[in-house]
């Protein structure tokens, strides 16, 4: 694995800007990989051994993805929408897993670790670089039971929705009132189809 500064530079470039979240994400990913015994997670064979669960969709998540190489499309990055600056690093081979949470107290302590900087954002940026791991993070060893339908690799399960006919992969269907349904048909959609007139206006 590259050193911290190299990873931070690359991560900021990939993300689009350098921010405190990038620092937290890069450090979290480096610590997570170290704890589960992976030092080259972006390369084979280790790329096949890692799954990361992120619990927030903010800057740090991009940094974690950059450092570890995990990706949604490769099913090695899992998004659990908890709104918590936390991630769990799982070594599929050994079963070792650690959940790392960015401490809220680290925000208040940033000035202690960047005493010469007045600007709050720059203070956090620098302070997060200098803080010891146990100030920046709380770490908990955990067990993550990654079910077969969440594993990387070819899709093993697929079934057609009895309502709309969509093909539902990876056990995401719901058996509801004697019918196998996709989640939108079972639980409702996050979108609302436009009225025909409105559709025309956009077109």
């Amino acid at each position, binding site marked *: 694995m590259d050193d911290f500064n190299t990873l931070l530079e690359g991560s900021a470039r990939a993300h689009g800007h350098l921010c405190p979240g990038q620092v937290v994400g890069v450090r979290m990913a480096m610590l997570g990989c170290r704890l589960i015994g992976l030092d080259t997670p972006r390369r084979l064979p280790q790329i096949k051994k890692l799954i990361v669960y992120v619990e927030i969709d903010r800057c740090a998540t991009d940094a974690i993805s950059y450092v570890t190489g995990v990706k949604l499309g490769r099913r090695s990055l899992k998004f659990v929408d908890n709104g918590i600056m936390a991630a769990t690093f799982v070594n*599929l081979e050994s079963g070792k897993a650690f959940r790392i949470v960015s401490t809220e107290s680290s925000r208040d302590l940033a000035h202690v670790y960047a005493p010469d900087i007045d600007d709050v954002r720059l203070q956090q940026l620098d302070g997060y670089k200098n803080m010891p791991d146990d100030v920046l993070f709380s770490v908990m060893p955990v067990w993550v*039971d*990654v*079910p*077969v*339908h*969440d*594993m990387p690799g070819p899709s*093993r*399960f697929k*079934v057609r929705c009895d309502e709309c006919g969509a093909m539902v992969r990876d*056990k995401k*269907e*719901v*058996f*509801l*009132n*004697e019918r*196998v349904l996709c989640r939108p048909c*079972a639980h409702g959609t996050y979108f609302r189809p436009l009225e025909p007139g409105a559709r025309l206006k956009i077109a």
Partner: protein
Amino acid sequence: MCQSHHARRYHGGMTKINVEEAVGTRLAHDITEIRPGEFKGPSFRRGHKVEEQDVCRLMRLGKRHLYTLDLKADQIHEDDAVVELATALAGPGITFGRAPSEGKLQLQAAYTGLLKINTQALVAFNLISDVMCAAMHDNVPVSQGQIVAGTRAIPLVIERQVLNEAVALARKQAPIFSVKAYHLKNARLVITGNEVYEGLIEDRFEAIVKDKLAAFGASLRETVMLPDDPELIANTVRRFSAADTDMIITTGGMSVDPDDMTRHGIRRAGVDTLHYGAAVLPGAMFQLAYKGTMPIVGIPACGLYHQITIFDLVLPRLLAGEILDNRDLARFAVGGLCLDCPTCRYPACPMGKTGC
């Protein structure tokens, strides 16, 4: 003799070697370690390369010999076989772990709901030599991630033909395991009884019903207290039926007293079916009616005193959208007796685990 005649055949593909001579070879299967009261699990994993220092430990585990594998084209290792078995058994709402342990895979609920098992097909599956699957009871509520069954190939090596037979049966009878998501969400409650209506005694049913519904993600939209007047009860049932109601629950007025008018009121409301009486204690005077597909449930007074009654047995099935009839209520007979234990362990007890 509990060993099947098939099991003895599978020495083909395996060579027995002394454990002292196994250094450098790879284990053909997980080696289980049992420390009574402390640990049971794989001490060595399949594929582990045996080292000098492992020999003593293996001997302490009682191993004097190990198998090396030389599988023929029509032979399947237990770890590969069990993935095929689990895939065929797991219907909607069922998933399983990413890797077998000691040759087993555990089927789990992918989401919270009602476990459904095609029990006849499961028995037929288990009649095929060299495969097995053991499960929880049918029709029990399960939570997301809960283990509901375990399956495996019994011998270390299974013939392709036998495995195919088991997989074909499971696919033909699919789903053998599934989880029904809870479908009904909105309940309305009618509390009957002159004594409650007139304020002589305080109602306790509402809180009980609310809690029991909430456990399955359903909620109580409205509660009405009524005297023992069949016309008023009928009118309220009609009004509830016309509203956004998935289920009507009534409490009280279910026994044989002359003042008990609830079921007369429900009948007067114009229901399609009405079943009175169930083979469950507590809960003999339970009533289940349907207006269309909407259930109208009558909880007898035992629901106030007993922690678990017939209501707890039928509620998850009704919320999962199942239409129950008098035959279903009669099927509760075996396993329908609450033993009234000093400390209630339901659902980890025989109550409601119907045997017929």
